[in-house]
């Protein structure tokens, strides 16, 4: 924050710490960001005190000093099938307990007033019992919560999903198609960065693919994530391609609106990953290297190499060195069709001698 920002006066309402910060604090996990609820204030009051409104439709504000999010206590009612189809009622009369009631899981529905824990929905008991349990039947009003719970299962791997919550999630299947792909992708991406990404796919599998993942081979995907650690979020996401058919991963990631590089790398991994590790002929390896973009500029080949290394549990440094050597090959041939043939022959010869040494 800019040090010259004048300190805003506190609005008249009372402010409580809520959500993930309360949960992670109780779990001893690092608290990344803190969200607050303000009870007994109006939007006009917040703006008058220097808070900046974040969205047009929700009474959510940024504290200009801390950059932390402050939301007016509100209730929500569903008006349509999607994640965003809500009417939101924020008024000074909405209580903290009412605000906590609209939240997804009991462990996310606790608040703190200084050191005092406010826990009207049994969040602390569920936290101690390591249970992901929904707060109320209103859970079903937001279908994105199905994937949020799957993500929490990956981020909090000692927690299990309560049977009644899993049943409720299964009953939400008809609503899942109306979600936006980006929102589902965002939950998957968070899960991939967690300590046990396998649990996201196990949850999807328990929900018969949860619509968005039903083209995937979830058994193979779960098995891969249960036996390997991934160096980072990017290789973990690309690795989904290792366990799946090319068409299935391409179509799934396209519907999820996955970032282009991730989608291309995962699709390349599905089509050519095994060949990178075990191609027996020079033409097969050349085809795989060309398909992952070794002869074009850009980050794609390195992302694929890193993901294959994490999936196969083996260094591809010799293959990286080969790719570098292939890029440097120049042939002394007349420009035209003959040039391409000569270049291909030179590359194949280089690959063949490499294969003799390495495979």
């Amino acid at each position, binding site marked *: 924050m800019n040090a010259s920002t004048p300190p805003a006066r506190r609005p008249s309402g009372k402010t409580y710490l809520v959500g993930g910060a309360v949960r992670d604090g109780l*779990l*001893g*996990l*690092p608290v990344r960001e803190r969200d607050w609820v303000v009870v007994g204030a109006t939007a006009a009051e917040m703006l008058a005190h220097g808070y900046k409104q974040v969205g047009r439709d929700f009474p959510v504000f940024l504290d200009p000093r801390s950059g932390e999010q402050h939301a007016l206590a509100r209730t929500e009612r569903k008006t349509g099938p999607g994640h965003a189809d809500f009417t939101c009622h924020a008024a000074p009369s909405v209580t903290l307990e009412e605000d906590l009631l609209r939240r997804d899981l009991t462990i996310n529905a606790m608040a703190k007033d200084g050191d005092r824990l406010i826990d009207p929905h049994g969040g602390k008991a569920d*936290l*101690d*019992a*390591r249970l992901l349990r929904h707060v109320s039947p209103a859970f079903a009003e937001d279908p994105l919560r199905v994937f949020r719970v799957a993500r929490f299962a990956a*981020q*909090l*791997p*000692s*927690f299990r999903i309560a049977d009644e919550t899993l049943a409720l999630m299964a009953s939400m299947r008809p609503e899942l198609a109306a979600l936006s792909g980006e929102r589902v992708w965002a939950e998957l991406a968070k899960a991939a960065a*967690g*300590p*046990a990404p*396998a649990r996201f796919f196990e949850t999807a599998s328990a929900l018969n693919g949860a619509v968005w993942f039903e083209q995937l081979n979830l058994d193979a995907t779960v098995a891969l994530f*249960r*036996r*390997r*650690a*991934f*160096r*980072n979020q990017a290789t973990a996401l690309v690795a989904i391609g290792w366990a799946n058919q090319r068409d299935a991963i391409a179509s799934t990631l396209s519907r999820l609106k996955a970032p282009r590089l991730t989608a291309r790398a995962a699709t390349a991994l599905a089509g050519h990953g095994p060949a990178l590790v075990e191609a027996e002929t020079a033409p097969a390896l050349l085809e795989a290297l060309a398909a992952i973009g070794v002869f074009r500029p850009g980050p794609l080949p390195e992302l694929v190499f890193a993901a294959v*290394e*994490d999936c*196969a*549990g*083996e*260094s*591809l*440094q*010799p*293959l990286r060195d080969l790719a570098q050597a292939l890029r440097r090959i120049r042939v002394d041939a007349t420009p035209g069709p003959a040039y391409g043939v000569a270049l291909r022959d030179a590359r194949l010869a280089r690959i063949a001698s490499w294969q003799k040494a*390495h495979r």
Partner: protein
Amino acid sequence: MTRRANEAVATYVVGDIQGCLASLRALLAAVGFGAADRLWCVGDLVNRGPDSLGTLRFARDLGERFATTLGNHDLHFLAMVHGGHPHRPGDTLEALLDAPDRDELAGWLRGQPFLLETEDWLVVHAGVPHVWNLAAVRARAAELQTAVRGAEHPAFFKAMYGNEPAQWDDALTGMARLRAITNHLTRMRLLDVAGVMEFSHKGALAEAPAGYKPWFAYPSRLPGKVVFGHWAALFGVAPDQCHPRTRAWGVDTGCVWGRRLTALRLDDERLFSVPAMERRAA
């Protein structure tokens, strides 16, 4: 942290910590390490990382809930304390060696074994050579532990270092025998089919010298599964990367090299992994 309801005590086997206490704390928080859960380590609690002293104190303070097999870096620290061995380049043991409770911590570490067992699992630092069966690994780990714990331990630590013998022979005796056991249990990576170890290669399998394979690429004579560490360059090993008759999990994912700290929960064979928290030296 509160104890999990409705669940039995879990056993987590964590990879080489090497003084990365902040990463260990992050991993334990991430898995929801319960007040009754057990933490086992494949060894190399110390060295190369920033907080060997804190790591040893943390592990010791877990009391009965903690156990580790001894790794080559743990032995190196003990050899500096008891065998007069000098500091080596890259060591980060100064704070530990200067600590007021150094001798107490060294004594506690010296009491740790070279082999941990459950009904289904063996935990060792480097691995179990294919030429040993269960009775052999048990007996040899116990022999080495006796030498490290016993009154003659200074003589052991003085003579511990050396690549020879690089091959097991039942007829070995004395220091040569103890050194052979040490080399197998705490330093082994590659062997040839006759069981001769190769010590210079620490990198990836693709670059291994001809004629040598990792110990887990040979058919195991053990009835159960093995968890091991020691080989960061592999970034973990799963049973599908082993010989079909060898079921081994490698859990060293190079935390001290800025990669990840990984644990295997033995009860349901699940991996948990967090990125390294330590700031890396430039």
